[in-house]
């Protein structure tokens, strides 16, 4: 059987232009899902649209040949973070259907700030990277797991360990915060 090893799902099938077009299309999906996430009045729907956006971002990582990151994205974000968020929504009695007050009174200010930020940043970014190209084709690129792993454990060991301590602290913190005090003692 003729075996073809593709180093990254997706990119191997596509020509450079194809990658570009796919990237833009998926990007539009991501943006759309993100927009719905921040505007929908149904709380759980927001979380589900967030899944779409995050999954789309994982695909974008694949297109950028960062395969390992992509799977981490799926594992952590889609598999855990969103589940936690849904968990939180359900524990705080998220209603089914539209909440009339999902947005606060700040929404017009928020819209202004967000639009201004978007405008400024797009302008700056477009101005800065007008003629910059990245090569997403080379085989066995930086996204390969082996490469990422060796760089992570060779050059980034110290930050990695520091991160472990941070995670431990977060774990302890979350436990302390969510533990119920025994009866008779003040909160």
């Amino acid at each position, binding site marked *: 059987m003729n075996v073809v090893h*593709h180093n990254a799902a997706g990119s191997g099938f596509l020509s450079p232009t194809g990658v570009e077009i796919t990237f833009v299309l998926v990007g539009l999906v991501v943006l759309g899902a993100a927009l719905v996430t921040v505007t929908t009045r*149904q709380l759980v729907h927001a979380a589900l649209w967030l*899944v779409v956006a995050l999954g789309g971002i994982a695909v974008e990582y694949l297109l950028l040949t960062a395969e390992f990151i992509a*799977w981490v994205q799926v*594992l952590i974000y889609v*598999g855990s973070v969103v589940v936690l968020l849904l968990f939180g929504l*359900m524990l705080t009695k998220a209603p089914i*259907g539209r909440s009339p007050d999902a947005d606060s009174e700040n929404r017009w200010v928020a819209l202004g700030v967000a639009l201004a930020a978007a405008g400024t940043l797009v302008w700056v970014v477009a101005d800065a990277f007008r003629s910059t190209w990245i090569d997403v084709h080379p085989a066995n690129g930086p996204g390969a*797991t082996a490469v990422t792993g060796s760089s992570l454990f060779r050059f980034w060991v110290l930050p990695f360990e520091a991160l472990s301590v941070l995670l431990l602290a977060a774990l302890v913190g979350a436990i302390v915060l969510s533990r119920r005090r025994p009866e008779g003692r003040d909160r």
Partner: protein
Amino acid sequence: MNDTLDALLRLVAVLVVFLVLPLLVGQTEHKVMAHMQGRLGPMYAGGFHGWAQLVADGVKFAQKEDVVPADADRRVFQLAPAVALLPYLVVLIAIPVGPHGFVGEAVDAGLFFVLAVMGVGVLGSLMAGWASANKFSLLGALRSAAQLMAYELPMLLAAASVAMAAGTLSLPGIVGQYHWWWTLWQLMGGLVFFTAGLAELQRPPFDMPVADSEIIFGAYTEYTGMRFALFLLSEYAGIVVLCGLTTVLFLGGWHGPWAGSVGWLWTLLKTAVLAFVVIWLRVSYPRLREDQLMKFAWTVLIPVSLAQIALTGVVKVVTS
């Protein structure tokens, strides 16, 4: 063009496997449970040994009315079975069946890919439970989410141990590195992986989220007809995927006599044996309590899997 055709063919093959194997497992479960529990019902349909029972079930599901509760969130309610089922289909692509590229798509970080995508399946349960607008459903959804969170970690750790041993994340690569003594070396990890997998599938004895005697089938309470069938199908597909993964990771996949020619048969055989064990466990063990379940994950599985990782590391360093 040849590449595209090749890829297309593989996808079709995977789809076929996905449609066939879970049904086989379902039928086997019927029969095995009937025999073990001395139940006569499933032995009648179709005459010989009740061969048509599965077909009858399918017809029954198809006939039933597709009910959506009035207060439910319709779209989410309808979407949930698909979300529960699809990840297993995607995962099947990456599981190698035989040597020489007998696999849907050899993903570089295959192990990681598989675990990541399997984690998405729980979203289906959550969506179903919440969208049903039923307190039992919500409880079931919360339970399954908690269970998934708790068992994801030992499962990942056990898988990491194998990846360490093989020095690769690619599933065909792992099988390629296999030696027979690995089964003993990685025994603890294998048991942890298999147990945690059972828990993620919410199979007995880890089936509190769907415990019918406590919360009336949990997240699936409001489901009827084909949608309910899809949930059942996702459960059986999960069994297939879990058994296949365990086979690939811990039992050597296609390794066996005449592996070059009938390797795929070995894989299927081992998977089938494991599937039988899953069914067997369902019949033999009582259900754990919710707190026992959590305690089991945190105080038994995680330490054992960590010990396995330590052992793997030590052996790796010593032998290299």
